[in-house]
């Protein structure tokens, strides 16, 4: 069963957010496993302003493509070039090396606790 990292909060659309400032954002192992092997990641640019609940990029696997939703509103401070160069990091280490970007948050969307997210999506804490 896909792992849900206990130290993070999650959007209903499977993005995770950590507690640092600026916050770091990625996609959950549940989402990565469901997508299959990720082969392409399209991320917002540094300086772009994203809005919680709206699409801000794409994650493409061999079999499908999914929108990436902003879990929080704010300015993109940094993007993970390593994940763009090697999208397999999203499958291999979704909560670590496969992070996507950091945001200087102005407001948050609706975020679930790890327990709530795991219960809803069948993940394993």
């Amino acid at each position, binding site marked *: 069963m896909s792992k849900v990292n206990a130290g993070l909060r999650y959007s209903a659309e499977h993005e995770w957010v950590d507690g640092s400032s600026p916050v770091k954002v990625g996609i959950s192992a549940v989402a990565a496993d469901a997508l*299959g*092997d990720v*082969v*392409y990641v*399209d991320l917002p640019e540094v300086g772009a302003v994203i809005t919680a609940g709206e699409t801000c990029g*794409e994650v*493409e696997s*061999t*079999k*499908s*493509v999914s929108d990436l939703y902003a879990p929080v509103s704010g300015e993109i401070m940094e993007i993970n070039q390593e994940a763009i160069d090697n999208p*397999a990091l999203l*499958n291999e280490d979704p909560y670590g090396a496969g992070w996507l970007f950091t945001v200087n948050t102005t407001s948050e969307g609706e975020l679930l606790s790890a327990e709530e997210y795991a219960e809803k999506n069948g993940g394993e804490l």
Partner: protein
Amino acid sequence: MTEKYTALYEEHKRLGASFTDFGGWQMPLKYSSELAEHHAVRKAAGLFDLSHMGEIKVTGPDAGAFLDYALVGKLSAVKVGKAKYSLITNADGGIIDDLISYRLDDETYLVVPNAGNAPVVAAELAARAEGFDVTVNNISDDTSLVAVQGPNAEAILLALVPAEHRDAVTGMKYYAAAKVPMALGAWSAELLVARTGYTGEDGFEIYVPNDAAPILWAALLDAGTDRGLIPAGLACRDSLRLEAGMPLYGNELSLDLDPYAAGLGPVVALSKEGDFVGRTALEAKKQQAPARRLVGLKGAGRRAGRSHYPVLSDGAVIGDVTSGAPSPTLGYPIALAYVDTAFAEPGTEVQVDLRGKPEPFTVVGLPFYKRPS
């Protein structure tokens, strides 16, 4: 719809497969990573459970003549031990299914339709058999199908074949089949082995009674592990067949499409004697150039076109993608698409509308990938 399970379902669960519904069947989508499975088939070998495919036995003095009438190809001309790719159409020339027929002896053929279409094809064949001295027997429920695909497929299969029968395998040509004796631990039997497949690689498809399928599966895995064989699911089967430019029923082929638009004109044997189902309609269709044709598309960027995405030229819709994915072997996006005939020439620059963003693609010849010979 009731979920159907192949005789190998428990093996797949044991191997940690994730499952998907395919034509009503619960089939392994992948065991580990679909990319790893894809590359294994190209570089070494993959083991597939294809038991969802149909098997229909056609037997009798009229078997050849009957299939000449029921299908668009000239099956009576197929030599014993050989196979032929063909289509079954309705009277309007619409494609009911694409299928492979093996001639097992003078009066026996094994017709293999696609999973979801098997009941329809069996019923159509039974209906078309009236007036012919043949028996149409749908043995799909009793038959499993296991495929070994990849450059190491022959070596792996040979590990299960007694030395005195090796020639039956090594001498088997592409699109041929034979009964081959196999030693599977305590169990031995003659199984129908065909040198066919859907991956663009060398490989074999082995027909086996359901109760023996797990034994065969385990024996092949055992023989193949040292030769790079891994179990392979439907996800990589789809990316492999797409690279090989092979059509998938429901994507590239359908009742609304005729063989000429699909680029399968040569499969239709209008020159054969006698009537066949669809002849009148197909003769008429051959006279008129199809409005759209199936082509290959190669993407310039990294993002892939997917089924149903519009193909554009200068902003105008000129076609539709039917299958598309990033090609794991080639490293760029590939797609099959129906485009207006005016844009079907290789080299034509088009765009695919990727969710509102047009990206450049080029029409290319098929297949995208051809194995080194």
